[in-house]
């Protein structure tokens, strides 16, 4: 069977959408799989949009904005890039990272717009249908993706990503400038933590579970689970509701 992927594009109004229009005016032909949502700036693309798109079974999502230095809003595309990188890192935890793509296309690059869309469509065709669409629907993956959405929407990751460029350029509140590499390391570790915490919270929403239960369900070492349980409890997000023998059972508050 010939697989025709469903592709979603977020295009900034000033560069990429105009580039898409120019492709039309120039009658550049490209695969008809892409559906476009116009936003004023690529920096408007909230990580939630990409993660929701994947959850509803879209096979591939491409974000397009102005080239660096060309942003109509000066630096919105840089913001788009840091957000996109975080989403990509999060999705690499569930092997969906190749289904999303970020590209800079200017208003004059009609031909290139066609090329970018064609090549992204081809790459998604090679990947095959999304595991969140059609017959082989992966319920477990959907749950993980929900945890990812919650992690990306959580205050910690949002604040970290949103202040990334400020910290790199102006320094943190102590005036310390932190390098891209150091910040990426901090981000990666925060991403892993938040993803696991959100998975724990989702599990504890449904039923009370022990650390051992969680360790088995999530296939994660119980000492790691315990570390996060302590941190979640300290923030009043969970509490134990019963103790069987010497094993406490936790539930989401």
């Amino acid at each position, binding site marked *: 069977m010939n697989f*025709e992927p469903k592709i979603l594009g977020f295009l900034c109004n000033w560069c990429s959408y105009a580039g898409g*229009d120019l492709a039309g005016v120039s009658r550049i032909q490209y695969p008809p799989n892409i559906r476009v949502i116009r936003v004023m700036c690529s920096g*408007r693309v909230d990580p939630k949009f990409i993660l*929701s798109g994947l959850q509803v079974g879209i096979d591939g999502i491409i974000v397009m904005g102005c080239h660096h230095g060309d942003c109509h809003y000066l630096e919105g595309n840089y913001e788009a890039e840091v957000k996109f990188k975080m989403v990509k890192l999060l999705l690499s935890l569930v092997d969906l990272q190749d289904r999303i793509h970020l590209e800079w296309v200017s208003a004059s690059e009609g031909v290139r717009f066609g090329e970018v869309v064609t090549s992204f469509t081809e790459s998604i065709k090679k990947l095959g249908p999304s595991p969140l669409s059609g017959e082989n629907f992966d319920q477990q993956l959907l749950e993980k993706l929900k945890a990812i959405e919650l992690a990306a929407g959580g205050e910690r990751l*949002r604040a970290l990503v949103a202040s990334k460029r400020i910290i790199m350029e102006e320094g943190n509140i102590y005036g310390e400038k932190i390098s891209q590499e150091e910040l990426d390391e901090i981000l990666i570790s925060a991403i892993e933590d938040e993803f696991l915490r959100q998975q724990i919270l989702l599990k504890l929403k449904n039923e009370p579970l022990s650390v051992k239960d969680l360790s088995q369900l999530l296939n994660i070492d119980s000492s790691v689970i315990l570390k996060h349980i302590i941190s979640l409890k300290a923030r009043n997000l969970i509490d134990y509701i019963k103790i069987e023998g010497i094993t406490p059972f936790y539930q989401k508050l």
Partner: protein
Amino acid sequence: MKSEDEPIRIGVFVCHCGTNIGGVLDCEGLTEYAATLPNVVFSDHNLYTCAEIGLKTIKEAIEEHNLNRVIVCSCTPRTHEPLFRSACEEAGLNKYLFSFVNIREQCSWVHMKKPEDAFEKAKDLIKMGVARATKLEALETIVVDVDPSALVIGGGISGMNAASNLSKQGFKTYLVEKEKNLGGLLNSLYRLFPNDQESSELLKDIESRIQADKNITVYTSTMITSIDGFVGNFEVEINQNGNSIRIKVGAIIVAVGATPLKPINLFGYDGKIRITQFELENVLKNYSLNANNIVMIQCVGTRNEERMYCSNFCCMSALKNALIIKEKNPDVHIAILFRDMHTPGIAYEEYYRRARESGIIFIKYSPEKPPIVEENKIKIYNEYLGTEIIIPYELLVLSTPLIANEDNKQIAQLLKVPLEENNFFLEAHVKLRPNDFATDGVYIAGSAKWPVDITESISQGYAAAARASTILSHDTLEVEGATSYLPEEYKDLCRGCEICLKLCPYKAIRKNEKDEIEIIQVLCKGCGVCGASCPKKAIKIKHFTNEQILSEIYALGGKELP
């Protein structure tokens, strides 16, 4: 105006655009499809929706079917949205309740050989458009008054020309200068290239015009102490000799110029026999020169690690001054030690040619082997000869660059505009908006932005004045309704992290006296970065709300919006 609580009634209008769309897509089929979508109460197709008859159909349908949302499926919103929006407004529908679906540029034209796939795509796009339209909200555009007056900061050649130009256009102009006299660096120059006019002559001419101009109020020895407000309505406090004065202006031009670098600890600078090119100008004014051997060194303290830039006019200043000396006394020996000579254009190149003809010696040096200055001679490694040569001097002239004024930082903070790495003011865009700041209503001219010569300073003064008049020539400004805002009910969410405030490219977000985040709608351009970044998700982006965008995503996925 349609009320918010009414049931959603969407009208969809599919355009054939002659054969542009109709030749590829089955527009009747799309119209029938649209009619099956939720909340769509009317759908129609026209040969040309943008033609008078097409627009009439929309207006009549709004009346007849009591439509409170309109969707046109045709070309691109980038060209035709204003037209359809105004048609809606004429029929009493808020323009933000109109939605565009692009089935030409991004569908029929790019999938001409696959009409069936293109039809499926158009159906999806219409489905998404309908989902979005359902979530659209009526928005108000804000109209603000414009104070038809301007403030020019800096009374140098650029600022004076800007002020004079604004006044001639009929705008009340305040010209503020921190020094005692107008004129800026013109005061310290002798003759100007490329026409060897006396600086004082040019200064006298423009200054007398300024002083005689009733439309211009000049404040000298005056500092800017505070700037508040926004485009069309700035409130500025200035301080003249301890007296505080408040003025209201619609636009502000920054023409603060720049400062010549004093080359302390460079090439034995002493201000006596080792002076700067600027100091030489003063010497030339009275022609109190009695040196027979003069050496000039170019690029002193610039084009190095500390200052990566070329100061633009120093080659010309050196050529001009050397020629003035040669004309007065052809026997004087002058050597110019340079790294690269920059003499762009016919008039400037002519100076270089004349300088060579008059016997001025040019010796190239490399920054790795700079000239070594001794008591009365200079050792210089000659690149071309490959050997060190020794030149005697009685006067050494150092061409130093203009550097950013020390108080640039303070003025930048007051205006909330950015500086670049050397603390010069940074324009909004080097080519698209070279004399604008990103902040509306604030403009830039002259060496405040970058070291420029007199001619360029004057041009930029005019440019900034012209840019300011695009605001000042209107009685009112209409401000886009699709902006970001902090809904009353989300105010509690805000924890005051100020990330939005730092990310906003237009400084449209500030903390008010109650320490609450406040979004100044007039300044907001609606890019949406603040909303996408807010850690607490408290900021809403009107017309591109999360709900509106998510509704499109869910429609495409064929799922209900949770």
